């Protein structure tokens, strides 16, 4: 494996919402091209970590360096430029439901339009290069034949793949996925994770995804981060997720045991 540069460096990151401390001095380094899963109980700070990375939230303390640049305090145009290079995947897909699949993927090209095309985009007119990129991104997630369908006619799994195509069309360095499969059944979840992995592979794309089920992390991630009560309590390969690590991340309860159990196995075959 080639020596890889750090893509994301988080230094002593804290985030407080009023008196609630959602993240407590989290430090970590993620290498370019890594597929990182963030796991933990709800309320452990997974989503807060991701929201700080996407700058949907502003950290209370600490630094976040992406490609060497501190993004913790960016604002205005600089923040938009950072977002343009960062793909976002949401639990509820966040696609524009009344637009076609193609228009939704083209949204990923919006911040990259320039000159007259910037204005033409207001009338949903895009440069041939942008349309070409969007078509390729759609093809990459296997939905090119649905290009002219309205997004709300697709299944949940297909919609999430459109969202991945939108993120890929941005030409990102980093993809942040917040519970990308939490609203999907197991078969669709696996297909979406596969599309995300396939999209990242080869391009040296870094992916950070919060996942609610350990099995997804085990199967798709290169590296797993475990959060508990705002602190990083596990950082290692999926294979290192043993019973002790699990106890540290999830504690001991019926709910904690449930997230460990393998998902219904037949569905994995589709992936």
């Amino acid at each position, binding site marked *: 494996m080639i020596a890889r540069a750090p893509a994301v460096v988080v230094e002593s990151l804290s985030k407080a919402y009023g008196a609630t401390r959602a993240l407590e001095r989290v430090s970590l380094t993620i290498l370019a091209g890594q597929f990182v899963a963030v796991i933990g109980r709800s309320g452990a700070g997974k989503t807060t970590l991701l929201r700080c990375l*996407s700058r*949907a939230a502003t950290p209370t303390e600490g630094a976040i360096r992406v490609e060497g640049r501190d993004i913790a305090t960016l604002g205005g145009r600089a*923040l*938009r*430029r*950072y*977002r*343009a*290079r*960062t793909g*976002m995947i*949401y639990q*509820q*897909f*966040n*696609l*524009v*439901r*009344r*637009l076609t699949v193609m*228009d939704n993927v083209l*949204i*990923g090209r*919006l*911040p990259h339009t320039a000159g007259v095309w*910037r204005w033409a*985009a*207001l009338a*949903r007119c895009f440069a041939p290069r942008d349309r070409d990129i969007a078509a390729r991104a759609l093809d990459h997630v296997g939905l090119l034949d649905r290009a002219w369908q309205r997004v709300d006619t697709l299944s949940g799994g297909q919609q999430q793949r459109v*969202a991945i195509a*939108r993120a890929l069309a*941005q030409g990102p360095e980093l993809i942040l996925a917040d519970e990308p499969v939490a609203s999907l059944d197991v078969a669709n979840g696996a297909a979406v994770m596969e599309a995300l992995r396939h999209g990242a592979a080869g391009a040296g794309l870094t992916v950070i995804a919060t996942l609610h089920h350990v099995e997804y992390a085990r199967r798709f991630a290169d590296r797993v981060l475990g959060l508990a009560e705002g602190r990083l309590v596990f950082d290692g390969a999926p294979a290192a997720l043993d019973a002790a690590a699990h106890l540290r991340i999830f504690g001991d309860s019926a709910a904690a045991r449930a997230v460990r159990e393998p998902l219904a196995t037949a569905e994995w075959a589709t992936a």
Partner: protein
Amino acid sequence: MSRVLADLLSRPAPAPPPRQSVTARGLVAAAALAVVFAWAGRVVELRPLELIRDAGNIATFLRGYLHPSFAHVGEYGWQCVVTVCIALWGTALAIAVAVPLGLLGARNLAPHPLIYHAARRAMDLLRAVNEFVFALMFVTAVGLGPFAGMLALGVHTGGVLGKLLSETIESIDPGQVEGVAGTGATRLHVIAFGVVPQVTPNFLSYVLLRFESDIRSASVIGMVGGGGIGFYLWDTIRSFNDREAATVILLIVAMVMCIDVVSARIRRATI
């Protein structure tokens, strides 16, 4: 008896918590309402008996309307066309007024609370002032005729449509907007892709409804010098030219019915 019911009935009867009596408050409210209506009836000089006593006079008056005269029907017909044109351009102007005001007057889009309040108050003002009052003002500004009528309708309806638009925008799904903004798109692009597709169907339906209402307003705005059939309505009624007045009223009814049918067709075809 079913086992479940038998089981339920075998236990001691529970006493539900006491319910607050509402009869007393209801009686007070009804009495207050009766007082208000009795007083308001005196103010409007409510004398239903006179309707019966003067039935003969009313019949004589109405008899004139049973034989409409078609001597000037061509002129009246043309004035109906003028009326429709006033409503068409009035509604178009209203859209031009409503879109910027509605965007700025939506809490979730306004760039600053001050701008939000300014836009809201501007729309309140436009709605509070009746189109006839605006017509009187525009007649002094641009002279008698359809142009003044069209300006008056446009400005007043602009306030109404702006308010409806801003409320539609406030009720949209924020996730879809977040999905577009998350790509780093500019504010204008976020509006074009995240907001416009969500509000278009509702807004279009409001525009059609207001167009129908503008047709009715345009048919009388000529009374204050705003052009169209309204002047002839006023003139023939005032001069007790009953047969001519009957023709004018028939034409207005026919015109309103036609427009309502057409607008219902458009609504069905587009929404």
